[in-house]
């Protein structure tokens, strides 16, 4: 894969040198980040629309925050502090699966239970960070929390591609079942869907994607990019194909613009923040359309 990345980079850098592409394309790390953005956009667009329909926004937020604790554990046990994937995947997966397991075995409402788990995870993370902060530069933690394109390397790109492949292989065949399981479990059972299994698969996919996108968008903001494009698309769409297509477009657009604009205009903001601000502006735009366009006036759906 590295040879492929190199050839794409060389080609784009040559175009930037000749003035065909903007100046930021001359930098290797910008091209790395943009290649990631072109994968992250569709991934988050499709998954995010499902998170929204399944009303699991708070759940994905808690997984993102658990990643911070995962990073702290990784640094403590001696993993590379720039790519502590083993600890992040391990802790987030443990967090998400334990949460789902508990959901099935308690009468507490989902938001209450997620709130409890989120608090526990943050408390552990905050305690561990105290030890970690003595070992590493605080800017490293900042880049984990809010994203940094400077930090994206070939390992991150390979992890992202691997997670995308897993999502495509597992998620696409089970897409209808995963959605139906939350809309009406009885109907899903009647259609032969293994409801419990697809719920766990969905939790695993959200966790994988959240961790794989951390380097670009950051632990705190990855959930925002999972949710805002889908919410913006929902404002102006009433069909599922339209919703998903627009969510993919908005997520990809937000990633590309959020990476390029700060570079082009030398604005010193973290990548994750810039990407989410672009997505939020699109959300405001579609909300205005929804509020003013005659075809949506008075519509409850």
């Amino acid at each position, binding site marked *: 894969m590295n040879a492929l990345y190199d050839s794409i980079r060389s080609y784009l850098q040559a175009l930037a040198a000749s003035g065909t592409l903007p100046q930021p394309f001359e930098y290797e790390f910008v091209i790395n980040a943009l290649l990631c953005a072109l994968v992250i956009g569709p991934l988050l667009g499709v998954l995010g629309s499902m998170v929204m329909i399944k009303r699991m926004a708070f759940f994905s937020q808690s997984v993102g925050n658990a990643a911070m604790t995962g990073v702290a554990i990784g640094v403590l046990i001696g993993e590379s502090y720039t790519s502590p994937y083993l600890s992040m995947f391990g802790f987030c997966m443990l967090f998400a699966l334990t949460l789902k397991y508990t959901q099935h075995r308690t009468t507490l409402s989902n938001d209450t239970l997620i709130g409890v788990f989120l608090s526990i995870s943050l408390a552990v993370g905050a305690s561990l960070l105290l030890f970690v902060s003595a070992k590493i530069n605080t800017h490293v933690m900042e880049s984990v929390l809010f994203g940094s394109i400077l930090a994206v390397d070939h390992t991150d790109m390979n992890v992202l591609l691997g997670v995308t492949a897993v999502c495509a292989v597992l998620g696409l065949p089970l*897409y*209808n079942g995963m*959605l139906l399981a939350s*809309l009406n479990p*009885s109907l899903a059972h009647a259609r032969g869907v293994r409801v419990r299994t697809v719920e766990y698969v969905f939790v695993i996919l959200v966790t994988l994607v959240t961790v794989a996108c951390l380097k670009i968008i950051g632990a705190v903001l990855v959930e925002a990019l999972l949710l805002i494009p889908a919410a913006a698309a929902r404002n102006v769409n*009433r069909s*599922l194909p339209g919703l998903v297509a627009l969510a993919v477009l908005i997520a990809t657009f937000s990633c590309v613009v959020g990476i390029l604009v700060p570079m082009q205009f030398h604005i010193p903001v973290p990548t994750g923040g810039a990407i989410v601000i672009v997505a939020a502006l699109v959300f405001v735009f579609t909300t205005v359309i929804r509020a003013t366009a005659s075809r949506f006036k008075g519509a409850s*759906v």
Partner: protein
Amino acid sequence: MRGPAVVFDNVSLQLGGTSVLDRVSFRIESGALHCLVGPNGGGKTSVVRALLGQMPHSGSIRFEGDVAKPVGYVPQLLDFDRNVPMTVNDVMALLGQRRPAFLGSARAARAAHAEALERTGVAGLGGKPFGSLSGGQRQRVLLAQAISPMPRLLILDEPTAGIDEPGIRLVETLVAELHGRGVTILWINHDLEQVRRIAQSVTGINRSVLFDGPPDQVACQLETGR
């Protein structure tokens, strides 16, 4: 080909320490139109959920004779989220095809969905948001998904609740047609007059079986037992 016979044998179900079903035993004959009646909270929907494999229970539920799949199921209207951003066609695609619904439907699947919607009298509503439909229209869409593809076993959970007289007649006609083709039908029903009119056999249930037999006798038993 006829639908399967369904045998409930000593089925018991407990939820949170409360007995919901207590040693429920009855039989639905192959190709029969069988109604399940009883008071609210009596466990009728739990019987259906146990049948669908959704609820762990003791005792056994088994199919005899021909294969049971596909199973058609029409849930209670209240059990479906109105705010889902889906058109009627999306709902049909979600329920009736393997391809992810957000990628649309293949031509053959679209034709099958359109035919099912036409049979339930909502042919022109495919492009409408599901949540914007009236209760009766949504119930017809849920009925359409249950008959596409043609089921061997059809389970109806109060499909005529809250719909108008033409809608009720349409459901009865459709069910009679499926019954004529040998589909086994289990219908949860509160309307005893309708039960007398359409059912071949009836089971009354209130946590345990109150009675089981032909509709002209058992409906009277339910009324006198109230």
